[in-house]
């Protein structure tokens, strides 16, 4: 027995003092009441007979004082918070790490999910701890991280509020020296844990046919043509799977395929008959235990050429690049002949800018002088591109790290979005309203036009100006949209909760879906799909071979002092009962 509140010597002294006081008080108890009786003949006979024949009569006084001393001892020692390891377990700390990876949503044969089993195991772990055991709960989504506490109800409530997350799981950082760490998992998404971690399995084999890839892409041979690439895989028993692609206009493609175990089916679907909008792919299979990967989303953009007016004194590279662009219907004019036209979708100004901003978006090369543009404040020689934003739509698939620039104008980028910059000056800036993109260097002063990313850049800019783009690809969990102060809408037009962080709009998507970040005329589509073979393979568990950890259950659930006080209360009741009935003295 050890004591948490006192040293052993102090506890011993307390016990001895208490027993001494009780015995002293017992000896000093009130004298017997004097009662006169006519004759003691009969009483003497009764008492002599009882006392001579009953061992109990001889022990009654001893039992009474023993009970009184025991009661006092229990109360006194309970103040010292004693602990008996064999009954209550030792004073320890337990960290419970719950795997909240998406595969924990897999259904099991009893109708529950792996997550529900994990929560039950976590609660049984709470029950296995001793009264002084402190618990802490963490998850692999790094959303939940409680403090150490002995309050099991608090921890139970916390576990009830937790759920499986769609985020990429990571085993949290825990100190294995200060606590026992239990990891409750299906062993699918997280395969490696520190050696001190005891793993508890909730794995059960399951059937699953899931979409492992889905995207819409341009058809290189067909201008403005799009096709859908779909890949599904069977991670369970051989089965037939039904595929469905559906669009906003009621267009639908349905197909049934037979899949053996571990077999992957890949297919490309022509979307020429589909209208602009969200495309939904679904797969149905018998006894599918993991519904999260049975659906995927993509966005099919508008299919129309952009009417573009290039205003230049002559720029062969630019003119050639635009003429080769299948999505561009190009017109070229001299700066002196420039007139704004309602039949133009986009203007490209090469070292020229009109006095008033055009009504349609414009791409500007060089830093021409115009009232609506930032004036040049000097010139920077050989600026080196040090930062650029790959998240911005105009920079997607564009690499500028090795672009050489002879000179660039120095401008003030206030109220502009800088998507590429050197240490001295912004190099590519974007204005949201009016909508224009300006390069602070001319194509002649750089080799940007010779880079493979240049046509992509032009295409991105024109698409950003006038066309819907393909949806950004994201995984379930916390999703970011590269558009500041945007409103997030679901596929059916409902507004979703979002936050602003570092110039991006952040929202939570626990399940696959098609979302749109909307700010004014700007609209950025985000397709949130699981589409991850790591998660879809719900049977790729380490617990196929690893043993699950077990933990000793302790009989007592609270600290020993609680039971000691309880026992003293019971003894007081017994003593009271027996004393008033004169069973004890």
């Amino acid at each position, binding site marked *: 027995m050890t004591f948490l509140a006192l040293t052993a010597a102090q506890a011993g002294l307390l016990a001895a003092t208490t027993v001494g006081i009780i015995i002293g008080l017992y000896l000093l108890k*009130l*004298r*017997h*009441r*004097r*009662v*006169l*009786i*006519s*004759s*003691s*003949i*009969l*009483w*003497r*006979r*009764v*008492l002599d*007979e*009882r006392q001579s024949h009953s061992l109990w009569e001889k022990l*009654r006084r001893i039992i009474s004082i023993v009970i009184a001393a025991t009661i006092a001892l229990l109360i006194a020692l309970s103040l010292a918070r004693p602990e008996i390891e064999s009954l209550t377990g030792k004073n320890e700390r337990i960290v419970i790490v719950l795997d909240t990876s998406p595969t924990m949503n897999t259904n099991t044969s009893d109708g529950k999910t792996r997550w529900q089993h994990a929560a039950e195991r976590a609660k049984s772990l709470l029950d296995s701890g001793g009264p002084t055991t402190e618990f802490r709960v963490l998850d692999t989504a790094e959303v939940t991280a409680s403090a150490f506490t002995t309050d099991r109800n608090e921890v139970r409530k916390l576990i009830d509020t937790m759920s499986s997350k769609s985020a990429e799981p990571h085993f949290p950082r825990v100190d294995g020296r200060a606590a026992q760490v239990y990891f409750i998992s299906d062993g699918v998404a997280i395969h490696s844990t520190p050696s001190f971690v005891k793993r508890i399995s909730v794995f059960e084999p399951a059937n699953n046919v899931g979409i492992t890839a889905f995207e819409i892409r341009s058809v290189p041979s067909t201008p403005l043509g799009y096709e859908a690439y779909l890949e599904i895989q069977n991670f369970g028993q051989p089965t037939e799977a039904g595929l469905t692609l559906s669009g906003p206009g009621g267009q639908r493609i349905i197909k049934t395929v037979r899949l053996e175990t571990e077999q992957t089916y890949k297919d490309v679907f022509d979307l020429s008959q589909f209208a602009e909008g969200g495309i939904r792919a679904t797969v149905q299979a018998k006894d599918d235990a993991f519904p999260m990967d049975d659906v995927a989303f993509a966005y099919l953009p508008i299919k129309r050429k952009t009417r573009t007016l290039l205003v230049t004194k002559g720029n062969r590279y630019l003119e050639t690049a635009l003429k080769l662009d299948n999505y561009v219907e190009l017109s070229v004019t001299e700066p002196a002949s420039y007139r704004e036209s309602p039949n133009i979708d986009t203007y490209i100004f090469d070292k020229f800018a009109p006095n008033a901003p055009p009504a349609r978006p414009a791409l500007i090369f060089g830093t021409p002088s115009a009232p609506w543009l930032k004036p040049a404040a000097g010139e920077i020689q050989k600026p080196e591109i040090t930062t650029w934003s790959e998240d911005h739509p105009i920079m997607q698939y564009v690499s500028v790290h090795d672009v050489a620039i002879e000179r660039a104008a120095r401008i003030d980028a206030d109220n502009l979005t800088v998507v590429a910059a050197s240490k001295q000056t912004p190099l590519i800036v974007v204005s949201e309203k009016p909508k224009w993109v300006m390069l602070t260097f001319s194509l002649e002063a750089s080799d940007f036009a010779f880079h493979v990313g240049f046509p992509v850049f032009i295409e991105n800019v024109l698409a950003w100006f006038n066309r819907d783009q393909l949806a950004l690809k994201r995984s379930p969990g916390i999703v970011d949209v590269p558009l500041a102060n945007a409103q997030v809408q679901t596929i059916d037009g409902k507004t979703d909760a979002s936050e602003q962080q570092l110039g991006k709009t952040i929202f939570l998507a626990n399940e696959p879906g098609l979302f749109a970040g909307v700010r004014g005329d700007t609209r950025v589509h985000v397709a949130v799909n699981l589409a991850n073979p790591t998660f879809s393979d719900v049977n790729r568990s380490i617990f196929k071979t690893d043993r699950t950890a077990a933990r000793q259950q302790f009989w007592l659930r609270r600290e020993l002092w609680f039971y000691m006080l309880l026992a003293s209360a019971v003894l007081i009741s017994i003593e009271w009962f027996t004393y008033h*009935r*004169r*069973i004890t*003295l």
Partner: protein
Amino acid sequence: MSTANVTLFDDEFLKKLEYLNIISKRLFAGQLRAERRTRKRGTGLEFADYRAYVAGDDFRHLDWKAYLRLNRLILKLFEEEEDLPIYFFVDSSQSMSYGNPSKLDYARRVCAALCYIGLANLDRVNVISFANGIKSEMPPQRGKGRIFKIFRFLMEITPGGETHARASFKTYCTETRRRGLAVVISDMFDGNGFESALDILRHVRHDIFVIHIASHEEIDPMLRGELQLVDSENNVSREITITPSLLAAYRAEFNKYCEAIESYCGKYQLGYARTVTDFPFEELVLKVFRQGRFLK
């Protein structure tokens, strides 16, 4: 006489005595009263026998007709008629002061009632107060008019001392006494045993009647808790914890004790009546009548 004594034998008590007298007459109507025949030959009116005359005999009892016929002096003998001595042994030990009303008060009333009946029957009534010896003794009384003297004697009895009935009875019986009815009124708490005391009375061939008086406090003690019981007679104390089982054992012991006395009385054909102090004493007296101890 103290106020308490006045209330003990007040007018109501006397009315009860008169009532008992009437009841007793009705119960035993037609039987002889006041004059009791004995085996002794004496000067009574009833002829008993003849015997030869010897010198000194009262020649008034010579049967002259027999002398003429037989020419011998024949003397007629008559039965002696004498009264019945009744001895009331009243226990006045300290234990008799116990109870409410006290056992001694109850004993006084019973004794007074029986004395009155005895006096009314022209019996010779003796009242003896005893404890660890003969404490006081009233000379034999005869005739109803002596009842107040007996009242006074009873009132003057004070409780005290331990009970030692055997020694008391032995002292009394060693004196020359006529045999008679010995009525022992006591709570029967005698440390030396009451059987040996009654043996003394039995050996001198008294007709014995035992009136055993108990109080409710003795039959069913209302005691609880940690107590120091003090014997009223010898002041011996004993610490005790009263439990329900102990009380039950005491009650069983009390019944056993009473049954032992009753069994003894039954064995030697002694009269026995047990009463409680709140039991109407006139009913007790009638019970005594019904056992016929006053009528030989």
